[in-house]
């Protein structure tokens, strides 16, 4: 299928109408003169239709899940149910202030509490908090909990090291550093944790081992029970990065695998929209040892009533101003109860089936670096293309012309020219077949075409190096860079 994205010559919002010339901002009586804004905020005055037309046109130059398959590995770009959008906009959900008295938000607390109970079952870890804003935020909070635990047990001075596989998501080492730990990467063997290397690395300095399972190579860490034993044997904690939970819903869970604490991404597994990069919704799940350290407040149920409990003396405190992203938690709850027991299992089974099927087909075009039994995603290597002067990046751009979003590329770094593909359970066989056909066309296209891709999108290949060399990050920069800009969009006197 050939894709043709809209290509509007749409100006920026400030070029849509004459900007009112410098005029004083209105005064609020009683404000000291020097705290008063002297000139009104520089921004255009537009009609509602002008605004709508502008942002509608911009949206038409953007690719979403409803535009076509969105194969970003480790991002779990599944269909975001429309019904959830409707429910999150109900007055009884949207028009609630976080500081309302508990008696007036019983429904919100009930939704959050019910979602927490579902997530406790899904993770096998009994204590849940929905406070984190996203997955990485959950990682950070969990590591603070690990810290607080070892501090209380007099081991923090010694346990300063976080271990992680070299395939870990970048957020893992970044979160560990922020939380004050040093990080040490364990080299993988055949795409999985090398148990011997892990055994050699753990010590009484180990605070925790952060692991994604299935991992970013799409492989299930089959030695997980031995891994847990190794980490626990050294007195460390086992941390579950839930980015790839989709593959194991109802099959296994972090609790059964021996993890002490986990974060989940509701915007992946539980289908809340990613929103162009956010909002997400993070979840913390903890076992008995770390449960008392979860952020406050916790939601508790007394009889039919729900309340926020701040009486958790071991809690790390707050990590976000309010209790998580309620609007997204509500969507995740709708997703979970729609699927129910059998449905969630079906999610995992189908996402794994899709991934194995597509992996087998695409494996005919490019090599697969590791074993071929995969979970939710799989890796290919673009190395053979290099002989023709073609890079994985070129292939990714060429795929865009086919109306499919490019895979995650150059990650994990242990695979040369890595291509990471995940098409979750909401993609049909027809979509997979079309994807495979498009992929084959792209791989077999001429180097000239691959280098020139994309051709059918709003812009041609974007010069990212230039963007970084001389950062132009705002309208203010544009005004500075191009003095002519003032002429192009005259600053008029007020009408």
């Amino acid at each position, binding site marked *: 299928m050939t894709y043709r994205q809209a290509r509007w010559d749409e100006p*920026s919002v400030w070029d849509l109408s004459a900007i*009112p010339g410098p005029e004083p*901002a209105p*005064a609020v009586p009683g404000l000291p003169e020097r*705290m008063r804004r002297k000139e009104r905020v520089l921004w255009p*005055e537009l009609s509602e239709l002008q605004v709508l037309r*502008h*942002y509608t046109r*911009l949206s038409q130059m953007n690719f979403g*899940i*409803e535009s076509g398959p969105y194969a970003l590995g480790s991002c779990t*770009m599944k269909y975001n149910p429309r019904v959830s959008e409707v429910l999150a906009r109900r007055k*009884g*959900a949207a*028009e609630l*202030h976080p500081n309302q008295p508990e008696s007036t938000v*019983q*429904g919100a607390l*009930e939704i959050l509490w019910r979602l927490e109970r*579902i997530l406790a079952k899904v993770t096998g870890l009994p204590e849940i908090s929905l406070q984190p804003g*996203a997955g990485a*935020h959950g990682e*950070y909070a969990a590591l*603070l909990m690990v810290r607080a635990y070892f501090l209380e047990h007099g081991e923090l001075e010694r346990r300063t090291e976080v271990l992680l596989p070299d395939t870990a*998501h*970048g957020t893992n080492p*970044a979160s*560990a550093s922020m939380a004050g730990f040093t990080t040490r990467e364990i080299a993988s063997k055949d795409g999985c944790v090398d148990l011997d290397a892990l055994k050699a690395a753990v010590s009484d300095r180990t605070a925790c081992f952060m692991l994604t399972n299935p991992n970013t190579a799409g492989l*299930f860490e*089959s030695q997980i029970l031995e891994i847990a034993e190794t980490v626990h044997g050294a007195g460390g904690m086992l941390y579950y990065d839930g980015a790839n939970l989709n593959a194991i819903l109802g099959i296994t869970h972090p609790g059964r695998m021996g993890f002490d604490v986990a974060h989940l*991404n509701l915007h992946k597994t539980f289908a809340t929209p990613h*929103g*162009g*990069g*956010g909002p997400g919704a993070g979840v913390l799940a903890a076992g008995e040892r770390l449960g008392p350290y979860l952020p406050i407040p916790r939601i508790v149920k007394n009889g039919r009533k729900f309340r926020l409990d*701040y009486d958790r*003396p071991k809690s790390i*405190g707050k990590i976000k101003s309010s*209790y*998580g992203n309620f*609007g997204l938690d509500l969507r995740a*709850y709708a997703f979970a*109860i*729609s699927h129910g*027991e*059998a449905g969630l299992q079906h*999610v995992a089974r189908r996402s794994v*089936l899709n991934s*194995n099927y597509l992996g087998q087909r695409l494996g005919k075009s490019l090599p697969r670096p590791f074993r071929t039994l995969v979970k939710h995603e799989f890796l290919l290597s673009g190395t053979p293309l290099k002989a023709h002067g073609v890079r994985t990046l070129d292939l990714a*751009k060429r795929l*865009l012309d086919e109306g499919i*979003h490019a895979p995650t590329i150059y990650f994990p770094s242990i695979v040369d020219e890595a291509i990471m593909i995940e098409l979750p359970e909401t993609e049909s*066989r027809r979509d997979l077949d079309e994807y495979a056909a498009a992929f084959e066309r792209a791989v077999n296209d001429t180097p000239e075409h691959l280098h020139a891709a994309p051709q059918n999108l709003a812009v041609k290949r974007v*010069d*990212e190096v230039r963007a970084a060399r001389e*950062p132009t*990050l*705002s*309208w*203010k920069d544009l005004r500075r860079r191009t003095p002519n800009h003032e002429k192009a969009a005259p600053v008029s006197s007020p009408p």
Partner: protein
Amino acid sequence: MARWIPDEAGEEAGLLAALGIPSVEALFSDVPKKARIGRLGLSAGLEEPEVVAHIDKILERNRPLSKFSNFLGGRISSRYVPAAVDSILQRSEFYTSYTPYQPEASQGMLRVLFEFQSLWVELSGLDAANASLYDGATASGEAMLLCRRLHEGHRFLIPASLPWEEKSVLRNYAVGPGLLVEEVPYDPRTGNLDLEFVRTAIRSHDVFGILADVPNGFGHVDEGLWDLKSLVGDVPFVVSADPLALTVLEPPGNYGADVVVGEGQGFGIAPSYGGPLLGLFACRKEHLRLTPGRIVGATLDAEGAPAYALTLQTREQHIRRSRATSNICTNQSLMAVAFVVYASLVGPRGLAALQVSIAEKARTLASALGAVEGVQAPRFEAPYLGEFTIELKQASGDTFLDRLRRRRILGGISLADPRPGVPPAPARILVAATDSTTEKDIQKYARAARAAAAGGSA
């Protein structure tokens, strides 16, 4: 169960046949038996009408803000959101997309984020903004970490008047690097920062940054912020500012702020029980490479046409890993869309007029409550915009608010820290006027407050 998993006749059987396996179970042979689980113990799935009915029934147990005379504010606003904002947010090209790693496919989102960054630059008076963080409190936390990269020391000064939640978040961002978050007392009369305290602290040479907020945690505008830069010298200075207030207040960049953060929820985002929110972050250009978060930059495409892309990514976790400036990956892009669409719909004159009108209502409210026995309103003498703090002479904050609630008034936010063991503090309530506040609401509040402010328990 909903039709979210495709099921064309025989589809899954066909996939299995292509793989040459008898059942999906074979695909899980790599999960050790001892790690397998049985039932999760969840209910059976529901059809869409059942889901809607079930959730609507639970939501009936909520009493939305419109059922009350509402005086709740703080960092969360309940201002009216024009319908057109949501119609843009519901464009699936925006809300179902992900981080624009592939710029060619994502010019729409990149361009809106560039406009968003531009707007926060205009409001804050600084040079550069990122494409959003989780919320105002975490933006303050990231700002603190930036300060530490810019300056030696281990003490970070914050106003004692900051909401307790934000203090707690900041302390959690300070834990990793072992920093000390220290509270600057306020003048008991004005509520303003004690500048003498700041002066002395700075002389210790152990302060690596200071944060002040405008309006502050009491709702007031502290004129002393103007003098802070000259006081702190080269110690980085963060201002947490309300975007609507900045339509009438001097941009903090103009009085020396190095970082301006804020909570952007009030621009086009429903309160939704506190999330999703929007963290705003702007800084000086020379510090860009030390800052957290996604940043969108303008560039050109292969044919020389204007184009946009995520830039300066070498700061970020997916490249720099343990040496990244932050762990942030997911941000609040869609909420950033709401922010800029809202501002463009209301326009610069409309926004300032909105702040002026809310401030007028707040003054009327303050004089009405000031006339109530047992209530000091406002408690502090510094000027204010849309909200201010009252102090109760007899009643406890909880009792007062509970009595008001029974009369369908949400009387404000108790400033007490709800954690057990916190020393008792004066009964203070942060009271906000909003765009929907009417003269009738104000009179109703004043009448109810007369009874509610009396001593004794409820």
